[in-house]
């Protein structure tokens, strides 16, 4: 996902702070517009009584007034006020909660900030986020954007900033996975299809602009675009109006169990579910499809998936299962990599090499992001005690693998320690408010789609008057879609042009 907008603005602010002289364009134009106002859920998503939604930017005061139904003055700065929280469009009461007002520069970001402390249920949170999204000038925050604004307002010192890049990295990755999860389904296909079609439209208009004189590109090219653009616009509009919105949002931390065949993945899955949800048998390749369930582990929402054992197989059903398993691992927030400890090499020094290779095989390749993972050595009830402690010795000396748990699903030995470790992971993940929130990702997508629809209007407005400005509308629309599906650069447009048309020198 493109996060460019937020940190680019941040860069701008730094440039100003550094007194970098910025040359003003000599053409007859005026200055730039104001800074956006951003909003986001600022508390974690686990089971919690109170959720905090934060709004930062010049429109924060207005947002506070309309959502908290304050017709006149803003509340006294930094004083809690109990109000009904309304949807300003429908005047429907969403919740009753505390509102706080932090006028800039004495706030976390240095800008005006409004905070809403509301009840922690998903329906309430989503309702408030949507209400904010419907206000003009507000848009969902990108990952790390609040922190970045704080940084650029000089509210963080340099040591705190050291962590900023890593924080953004982690959040970006979490968001990317979240977006991928949504994009993996029908919705993703839909967005990609729109993006492809709009790219083609733009490429054909660009071809008509750059090459129609001197090359054989007929006016007919534009006729097709004239049909495609309204069709596309209508489809996006219908999608935005569709209250069901196609897909169920799957909220929670995605935990995936993966490993070779017959290492006990389904046994671990059943233990965590506390019911025999998956079929367990000594036959390798029993689990073929993804088995999925929603759980509550230590108060944190979890989506747990059991996957097919990874192995090369000729069986086409199992092959598909392995493909799905690998895909699932890519989308996971936490991967539990399971190993059959009876398969470990007999000589303890060889163990770490074996495990390293095993991890490489299970985890997605080329992913430089250190995905959260736990290495679990199962079936230790089948090993002699002295061998176990030898293995433990080796593992304490190797730090680069992954946190390791030694347990037995059969005897339940080591399970307690594993659960504590897992809960720690969940706590870290859930403490990060932006990371796993599907509704926020969705709000962001909706905002981009809405922008796309509006930009496409410019195409009709100028189609017969000024094709350069009409094309600009398509460019803007594609760049909005690109914030969901990935940026489309000039080179890709040229690829389509040269593929579809014979362009001479």
């Amino acid at each position, binding site marked *: 996902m493109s*996060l*460019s907008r937020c*940190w*680019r*603005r*941040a*860069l*701008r602010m*730094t*440039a*100003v702070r*550094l007194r*970098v*002289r*910025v*040359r003003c*364009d*000599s*053409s*007859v*134009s*005026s*200055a*730039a*517009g104001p800074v956006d106002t951003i909003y986001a859920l600022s508390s974690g998503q686990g089971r919690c009584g109170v959720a905090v939604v934060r709004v930062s930017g010049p429109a924060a005061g207005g947002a506070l007034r309309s959502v908290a139904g304050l017709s006149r003055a803003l509340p006294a700065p930094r004083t809690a006020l109990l109000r009904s929280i309304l949807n300003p469009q429908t005047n429907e009461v969403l919740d009753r909660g505390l509102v706080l007002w932090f006028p800039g520069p004495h706030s976390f970001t240095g800008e005006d900030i409004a905070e809403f402390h509301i009840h922690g249920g998903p329906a309430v949170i989503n309702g408030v986020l949507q209400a904010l999204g419907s206000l003009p000038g507000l848009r969902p925050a990108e990952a790390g954007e609040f922190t970045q604004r704080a940084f650029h307002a000089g509210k963080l010192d*340099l040591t705190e900033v050291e962590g*900023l*890049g*890593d924080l*953004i*990295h982690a959040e*970006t990755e979490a968001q990317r996975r979240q977006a991928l999860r949504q994009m993996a389904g029908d919705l993703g296909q839909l967005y990609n299809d729109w993006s492809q079609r709009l790219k083609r439209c733009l490429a054909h208009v*660009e071809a*008509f*602009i*750059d*090459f*129609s*004189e*001197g090359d*054989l590109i007929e006016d007919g090219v534009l006729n097709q675009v004239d049909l495609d653009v309204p069709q596309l616009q209508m489809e996006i509009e219908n999608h935005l109006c569709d209250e069901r919105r196609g897909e169920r949002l799957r909220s929670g931390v995605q935990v995936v169990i993966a490993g070779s065949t017959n290492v006990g993945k389904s046994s671990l899955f059943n233990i965590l579910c506390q019911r025999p949800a998956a079929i367990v048998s000594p036959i390798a390749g029993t689990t073929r499809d993804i088995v999925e369930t929603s759980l509550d582990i230590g108060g944190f929402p979890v989506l747990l998936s059991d996957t097919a054992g990874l192995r090369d197989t000729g069986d086409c059903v199992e092959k598909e299962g392995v493909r799905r398993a690998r895909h699932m691992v890519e989308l996971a927030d936490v991967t539990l990599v399971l190993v059959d400890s009876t398969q470990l090499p007999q000589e303890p020094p060889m163990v770490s090499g074996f495990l390293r290779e095993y991890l490489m095989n299970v985890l997605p390749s080329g992913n*430089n992001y250190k995905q959260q993972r736990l290495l679990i050595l199962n079936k230790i009830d089948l090993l002699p005690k002295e061998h176990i402690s030898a293995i433990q010795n080796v593992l304490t000396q190797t730090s680069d693998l992954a946190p390791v748990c030694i347990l037995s699903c059969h005897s339940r030995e080591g399970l307690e320690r594993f659960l504590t470790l897992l809960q720690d992971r969940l706590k870290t993940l859930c403490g990060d408010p932006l990371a796993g929130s599907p509704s926020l990702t969705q709000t962001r997508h909706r905002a981009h789609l809405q922008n796309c629809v509006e930009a496409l209007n410019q195409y009709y407005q100028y189609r017969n*008057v*000024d*094709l*350069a*400005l*009409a094309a*600009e509308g398509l*460019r803007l629309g594609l760049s909005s879609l690109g914030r969901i599906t990935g940026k489309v650069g*000039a*080179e890709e*447009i*040229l*690829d389509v042009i*040269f593929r579809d048309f*014979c*362009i*001479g*020198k």
Partner: protein
Amino acid sequence: MLPVRRLLAQPRFPSFSLARSSSNSSHKRYDVIVVGGGHAGTEAAAAATRIGAETLLITQKIQTIGALSCNPSMGGIGKGHLVKEVDALDGLMGRAGDYAGVHFSILNRRKGPAVWGPRAQLDRSRYKEFIQSELLNMPRLTVIEGSVEGLLVSAADPEQPGKHRVTGVRMADGGDKILCSSVVLTTGTFLSGSLFMGRTTSPGGRMGEAPSCAGLSHSLKEVLGLKLGRLKTGTPPRIIRETVNFSLTQLQLPDPQPTPFSFINTHTHCKPEEQIPCHLTVTTPGVDRVVRESLPVNSHVQQDTKGPRYCPSIESRVLRFPGRQHQVWLEPEGLNSDLIYPQGLSMTMPPEMQLRLIQEIPALSQAEIHTPGYGVQYDFVCPTQLFPWLQLKSVQGLFLAGQINGTTGYEEAAAQGLWAGVNAGRTALSLPPLSLSRTESYIGVLIDDLVVHGVTEPYRMFTSRAEFRTSLRPDNADLRLTPKGREEIGCVSQHRYQEAVRVQQGLTEALSTLNSISLSPPCWREKLSDVGISENKSTLISGEEMLLYTDVSFSILASTFPDLLSPYLEFAERIKIEAVYRPHCEKQQREMERMREEESLSLPPDFDYFSQQVSLSNEVREILDRARPSTLGAAMRLKGVTPAATVHLLNYVTKTDRKTRGK
């Protein structure tokens, strides 16, 4: 191979003296030496001179300075933008076009001023005449004939980035060494160039001229260790005019009133009624057949050197898009030339097959070839090794411009030449080098694309490459660049600067006068009855807003308010364009400012991306180390550089800046 005759029957020598005495050139030290007299070289020499540098232009033959070695035309869509910008920075090309043009037209007239493409057919000899007369009469510029065999290189200045420093050139044939501060290489297709026709291959960069630059290739590759690539291009056969049956073609007339390229010209040298037409015809299935038959004896087409995705030759057109009619433009080579340039028929097959091919086209069924077409393959220096001011990152004082950087086209070459010349001059005079931003010019887009992304095919300008196309229009190139060219760059004459300032003041005044006229919709309806102002509209409408209506021109408004507006009638077209585009340009302003600020944060060229000072992933380290972006903006446009990496880089830049300020 057929004996190759000169394209021009008799090269016409200008009446003024050809070159200043070159006898003592070798004893003198120059600020800038420009190698090559093509479009890049001539602009580079002229620009360095305008900056104030003592400049030497070395060319193989003075009489080929300013030669149009391929098509007899310039400008067009995207390329016309470059011509206007070169002119706005006081370059030669626009004025040369106005002098040599014999057929002017603005392409894309119906598609919006941002994408208008000013274009002209040129008279080859007039073009050369103009360029030569400009250069040979320029103060501070010396022109000599000769071949450069190698570069003189010494140890780098430790204060500056780079591994070497260029100190001059060594002339061929045991010639002298000539010392200088900066060198601009504009050797075009001559770097290890080979010519292809049928199965024949011979060394050279242009038919009829001696191969050269073998020593230079060696200098670049072996001594300086630069990364080179190979590209190909080609040119069509020239056809004898009187053998063409023009009655079977479609007549293409020029614009009745020619529009000059240059902002300081009010009219072109060629009178409107003296302009000559072009003709359009199309290929037939017979052409496809000959192309396919020629394949076994066409080594240029067979060889796997990167050609463009677009189709420069008739062979590639037919192979990629078979069974179609392809357009062929029959362009005059000049007012008095007896040759026709068949645009679209670039080919490399054996000459006898070239003749068969063109005779498959009805209008050319009796045509005779004067000079056959041929292909060229040549080395280029991967342009990612350049700074945005076109100096090599590893060699202090060495600048490259034109086809040597992997571009194609006169206009692309001229634009780079000008910019390399400006910076070679500035460097020699100990002024800091400058770069042009993507947000202010197509030249900036061109150079940024080259140095950030490199090339995989000959790079050519299209308007779709400019993300701020709405703001970077051909009509406002003077407002964008001329004041800066005078005040910051130092390459624009006082005369041109004053004209640009006058225009800018006129436009600003006109627009504010328009805004001072504010009437209710009924009042406007009364004054301009034909304009369909919406019945729902109730607020006051300003004169500028009225210009947003398609059928309201500035002249109409001026006739309604003659006292207020008639002083600005000379800017009528420009005012209309400004008014229509202003809202869109304002929307782009923020994005443009952002990009400028990113570009103002520079990254040290010798920065060790593998050092532990900055935390970056290994993948990103490698990307940055390979590309060595000059600014944070350029780093962000690289594929694979993540937002997090940029924050770390920003953090680094911020910290370094604080440290240096603390010093």
